[in-house]
């Protein structure tokens, strides 16, 4: 299958090709398009702000003890809220209806999907999705994570093209992560190891650098005695966990002596809970009794500087942006840029730029399958559906195997093809494009018939819409399959006007079920 480099890039650096993006890329050229995308405005563009404000997310509940019945379409209201403003939603004793408590994740997920479809800053949205999975939290599993999600989303957004070391600390001090990986309750004496372990395995050095099956003592790890160990072992995890004791949130917990923390949900450091004694992480000694936060920051310094982190995160970026099995040359090139720019505020941007300009970005169709979020957004974009996001669509996406901000394991959603080709996910893929075509969830109707001025045959319609969606000519077998499935003759005329729309929309949906549209 030959697909144009522009299409390939829009499948990878954007949520698929919309007619507008293709035109823009042709107008300014791919190089400039990348540069524009790498310099997004902070926040949403005016049009996006309007779309967000116009998005009605249905909320409905009966009257209960202390609240009246509600049945309305309500735009998102949590997105700009601080965790302290939403913290009361964690209080089970307050008289608040259940659906109100679920709003934060629902609103952030809806905004994420709406931005994926419409944002001008497509590359940023792709990277935000990447980092949310890299630094996964599960807002569907814990109400405290849920209310902290809007703030967490803003953290991810503001660092998505920034510096990794700064990003690590912003995440480490985010209430959502502190709750999700239990560091909130970690105390000197017997630290909670959950965050420390996943920090090494999933956020930084990666599991290939977990050398516990080879070495039991830190000094045995190759390079350790020179201060540059090749990887980490359980001892590093235990010591790192000690370093982060006392990094917590203001959750109203008792501090002893009749004092309590305020109940705001915000990050705080409790000196009394911190393990102050000396530590050794990655063959580096930590002196006892360091200033507040210094131990944890030193761990972050060490892991951010480690070569395994560069390799691990760059491999993941290449896997997301290019191929399930990125070439060694591509990963090495990205890793080099990562390492050289370690101290720069735009480190990640430089790495992404290197990947975006690499020859591999312009070749190799079919090396990944679109995840359901990509499929949904790219279908709305490619078919030119002026779609909004509704609760119905979100629920369908939740059931598709890609539950935004609701993935239980700290790995984030898998990023290789096999997971996304299970029978369940495939069935949901077909449902998602069918429902969008038929406006099954009230996301917005579209009228392909209005785009053709003259009568065309069914076979021509298939060729036309297939070309619009995928950029490649439909082969004879694809046309025959859709014709025979729909029991249409090749020459069956489709008249201009809305009466033909149901047939056109069905053809569109079938074109979106082809390998040409599902692979990328």
């Amino acid at each position, binding site marked *: 299958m030959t697909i144009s480099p522009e299409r390939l890039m829009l499948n990878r650096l954007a949520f698929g090709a919309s007619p507008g993006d293709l035109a823009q890329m042709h107008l300014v050229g791919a190089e400039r398009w990348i540069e524009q995308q790498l310099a997004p405005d902070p926040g949403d563009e005016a049009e996006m702000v309007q779309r967000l404000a116009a998005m009605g997310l249905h909320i409905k509940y009966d009257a209960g003890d202390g609240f009246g019945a509600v049945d309305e379409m309500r735009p998102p209201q949590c997105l700009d809220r601080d965790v302290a403003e939403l913290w009361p939603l964690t209080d089970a004793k307050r008289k608040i209806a259940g659906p109100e408590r679920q709003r934060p994740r629902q609103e952030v997920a809806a905004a994420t999907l709406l931005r994926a479809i419409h944002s001008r800053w497509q590359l940023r949205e792709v990277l935000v999705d990447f980092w949310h999975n890299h630094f996964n939290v599960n807002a569907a599993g814990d109400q405290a994570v849920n209310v902290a999600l809007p703030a967490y989303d803003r953290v991810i957004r503001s660092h998505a093209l920034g510096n990794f070391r700064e990003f690590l600390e912003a995440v480490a001090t985010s209430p959502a992560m502190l709750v999700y*990986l*239990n560091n909130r*309750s*970690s*105390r*000197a*004496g*017997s*630290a*909670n*190891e*959950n965050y420390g*372990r996943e920090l090494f*395995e999933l956020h930084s050095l990666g*599991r290939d650098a*977990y050398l*516990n*099956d080879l070495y039991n003592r830190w000094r045995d790890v190759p390079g350790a005695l020179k201060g540059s160990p090749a990887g980490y072992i*359980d001892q590093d*995890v235990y010591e790192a966990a000690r370093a982060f004791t006392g990094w917590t949130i203001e959750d109203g917990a008792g501090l002893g002596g009749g004092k309590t923390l305020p109940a705001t949900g915000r990050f705080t450091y409790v000196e009394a809970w911190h393990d102050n004694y000396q530590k050794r992480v990655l063959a580096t000694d930590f002196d006892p009794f360091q200033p507040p936060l210094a131990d944890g920051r030193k761990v972050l310094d060490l892991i951010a500087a480690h070569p395994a982190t560069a390799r691990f995160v760059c491999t993941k970026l290449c896997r997301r942006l290019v191929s399930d099995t990125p070439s060694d040359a591509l990963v090495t090139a990205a890793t080099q840029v990562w390492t050289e720019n370690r101290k720069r505020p735009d480190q990640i941007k430089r790495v992404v730029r290197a990947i975006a300009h690499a020859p591999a970005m312009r070749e190799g169709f*079919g090396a990944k*399958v679109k995840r359901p979020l990509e499929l949904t957004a790219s279908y709305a974009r490619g078919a030119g559906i002026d779609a909004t996001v509704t609760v119905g669509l979100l629920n369908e996406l939740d*059931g*598709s*195997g890609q539950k935004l901000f609701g993935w*239980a*394991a700290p*790995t984030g959603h*898998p990023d290789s*093809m*096999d*997971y996304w*080709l*299970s*029978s*369940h*996910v*495939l*069935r949901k893929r*077909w*449902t998602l494009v*069918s*429902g969008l075509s038929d406006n099954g969830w009230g996301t917005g109707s579209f009228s392909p018939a209005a785009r053709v001025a003259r009568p065309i045959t069914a076979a021509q319609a298939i060729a036309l819409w297939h070309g619009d969606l995928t950029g490649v000519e439909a082969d004879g*077998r*694809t046309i*025959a*399959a*859709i014709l*025979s*499935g*729909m*029991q249409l003759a090749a020459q069956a005329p489709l008249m201009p006007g809305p009466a033909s729309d149901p047939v056109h929309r*069905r053809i569109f949906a*079938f074109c979106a*079920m*082809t*390998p040409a549209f*599902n*692979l990328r």
Partner: protein
Amino acid sequence: MILCRRTFLQAGAAAAAWPGLSHLALAADAVPGDCLIVVFQRGGCDGLSLLAPTNDPDYVADRAPESRVLGDGPKPGRPLRQGLAPAIDFRLHPESVPLGELYDSRALALVHAVGLYDGTRSHFVAQDLMERGVGDGTRLARTGDGWLTRLLAVHPSAAPAITTGPAIAASLGFHRDSLAIPDLRGGLGLPGGPQVRRTLTALYGDADDPFSRAAADTLREMERVESRLPRGPDGKLVEYQPEFNAVYEETESGRAFRTVARLLKMDIGLSVACVDIGGWDHHDNLAGRFAALVGQFSRALAAFWNDTAGYHDRLTVVVMTEFGRRLRTNKSNGADHGHGSVMMVLGGHVLGGDIYGRWPGLASAQLDNGVDLAITTDYRAVLAEIASARLGAGQALDLLFPGFRPGQPLGLVRAS
């Protein structure tokens, strides 16, 4: 494989009740053989809470009363007769009383201090190793598919292999005749019905890309199940009616076991099903979170066992987890990643009512790395014994578990 006459008679009775099923009793591919249900408790189930050595002095000394199972008081653990270590008062968690009944009826056997000998404390490494049936990381790269995929190569199945989550379990990796069915209540139909089926079948028919291959496999396997789902005269799916007063709760465990029970009782020849139950990673509030989850789990497993009473003769359920949890709790009143844990084996040919394995003790010198319950039984010893005794894979154990040398059998299951 045994051809179970009773099952055929049941299928005939069902066919009389539901006209849509009339072809079932005659279906040539519905050859009932043994069925293996592999349950994976994701996150690292605390074996010391599931099957607690309540009077072990180290257990008592190292865990606060609120974080351990007690031998007396208002909510004691469920006592068990056992030959593992008669001096120790092993008890099931108080929320696992339904499992105690299965144990007393000798359908359920327990194995303690079992797991993956490899010392990894990573969930994802440990799960990968176990689902691929290997013992250490050096074999991981060379063993891409799952151990159940290899089992199905020697024990072919008439029906697709099932996973009760949204994705196929890694133990079934690269097995093409697989279905992921998180919930069967809505059926497995396609949006748009026959038109969509026709079109997609033609669209993917002989295309040779990974997407089309997977899609074609899915259409074929889904149809095999969907066409057998009982429908009423109005064409609507008949709601599943559990038998023998079994009640499935609306929990992950309840949904998963209800789905498997329904598939089993459709008599499509189900051979392998994977049930994934998440949420066992109790780094904080171990006591509260474990009690809630193990209660849901135990009630669901017991409901499944009751509901499938007509199938016990060819049913084996094995429950496993990637590792147990630390003996000493942390300051969050949780327990961090440990080593040895518990496996459960439930089935009509299981020699239940006992705890198998070897109890290593919990004194400091007996613990793995000084902190965790040591492993004395390789998880593959349990799986190999089941595969060998019940699924005819005795000659293929090296294929299923490369590099594993089975020792003396535990004697958990009777051979068919």
